[in-house]
């Protein structure tokens, strides 16, 4: 009985996490380059439950079967489907038609990757992200360089925006600001051209998120009902059994 309360508690914690995740996807429906996340849950490893009816010494060991202590979050999965392209006409906006990513230099010298092509000009006329991280370009001879622009957003130093592709299933780490890092170092620079004047919007599917909101609330309700029932049964066991 007390076990059931524990199991339900675990479930509710997962549902709360899912609610946070759905809220977050909803909050980012208009964030360019945002990739929605899904929380995948799984049942925990099962354990064999054993009952010794007449005490351990009497060795009347009775196997009750396998027991699962509840569910847990298996993984938080980032869906990398392409978002819709929107024509902005802004010469500082770029979108990638294939599955590659833009390379960006972080302040600490670390390399990050993004699908968010909503760029700006910094004080030295370099192409930077909205947070001021420098966008990495490739020169014709293959060396890396910064990207210098003129007032009208035309590239001055002959560099192209560097595009990097990751093999299917590569584990990219999400660091916020629609940036990802590649801890395994599996990214490959590829030949490709980003489209100027377009932005890739968020890939959140609003209707799905809406359905998820309902689903989570109802699942939570069901768990709460189950919890109340357990509580009532427990109350019977504690207060009523044995009453003359």
């Amino acid at each position, binding site marked *: 009985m007390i076990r059931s309360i524990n199991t339900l508690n675990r479930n509710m914690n997962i549902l709360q996490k899912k609610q*946070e995740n759905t*809220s977050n996807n*909803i*909050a980012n429906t208009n964030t360019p380059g945002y990739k929605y996340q899904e929380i995948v849950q799984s049942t925990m490893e099962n354990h064999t439950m054993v009952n010794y009816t007449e005490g351990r010494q009497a060795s009347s060991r009775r196997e009750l079967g396998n027991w699962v202590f509840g569910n847990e979050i298996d993984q938080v999965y980032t869906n990398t489907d392409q978002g819709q392209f929107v024509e902005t006409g802004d010469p500082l906006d770029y979108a990638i038609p294939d599955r590659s990513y833009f390379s960006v230099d972080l302040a600490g010298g670390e390399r990050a990757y993004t699908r968010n092509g909503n760029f700006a*000009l910094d004080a030295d006329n370099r192409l930077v992200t909205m947070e001021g991280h420098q966008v990495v370009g490739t020169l014709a001879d293959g060396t890396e360089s910064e990207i210098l622009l003129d007032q009208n957003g035309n590239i001055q130093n002959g560099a192209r925006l560097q595009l990097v592709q990751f093999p299917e299933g590569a584990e990219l780490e999400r660091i916020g600001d629609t940036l990802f890092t590649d801890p395994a170092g599996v990214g490959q620079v590829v030949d490709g051209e980003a489209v100027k004047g377009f932005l890739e919007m968020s890939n959140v599917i609003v209707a799905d998120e809406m359905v998820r909101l309902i689903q989570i609330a109802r699942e*939570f309700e069901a768990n709460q009902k189950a919890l109340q029932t357990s509580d009532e049964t427990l109350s019977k066991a504690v207060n009523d059994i044995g009453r003359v």
Partner: protein
Amino acid sequence: MFSALGIGRSGLHANQYKLDSVADEIANVGTDGYKKSNVSFQELLPGEDVTLGTKAGIKKLDFSQGVPRETGYRWDFAIEGDGFFSLVNADGDAFFTRDGAFQLSQEGTLVDYAGNALVVEYNQDLEEIPVDTMQVNAEGGISGVVDGEVVQVGRIPLFMPENPQQMIHIGEGKFLPAAGDQVFNSVDNPEMFGSINQGFLESSNSDLTRAMTEMITAQRAYSLNSQAIRSTDDIMRMINEMKR
């Protein structure tokens, strides 16, 4: 603590900000020299498992050309191409504007509607020249006719900071160049600047159709976020009702 409410709130804030900007653009559809600004969204930093919402407010100033509108008035100027008029207020502070509606002050200088002086290199006093004969050419040169002879009265220089995106918008269509940013003028670098059209004003560069669609998107995103908050509220109520 359960952060879904905070995430929903971040979505409300961001979309509110977007709506403010869109409202500003719509309100200024008839303001001469108005330059719209674009609000974009960005994902926040990741918390435990999921990202903690969205933010907005990183603005890009959009200096795209507004359509020149003929007024026929002598002291109305529209810049076609790059550049800004420079104004000096009573305290001697200089700022830039694209709004070319000027008038002749009692002192015989060109001022805007609020009495801020337009920066002009005068060769001689405007008062000595018959007003009806004064012409302003594409380079900003002011000429007049005195006793049948053409006299060069002065020149209206245009200015351009090295990085217009870094300018500070101080309202009323006025911009301050960022501290330390190099400022070019049309006397030394004529090739960088557009031309001045006398008798024209530059209309607002508001894009009403786009603003309206952006308003609808932002409004819907706003309600979506409030829906997420409501659903989170339901869950929290259920938590509170667990023990009756």
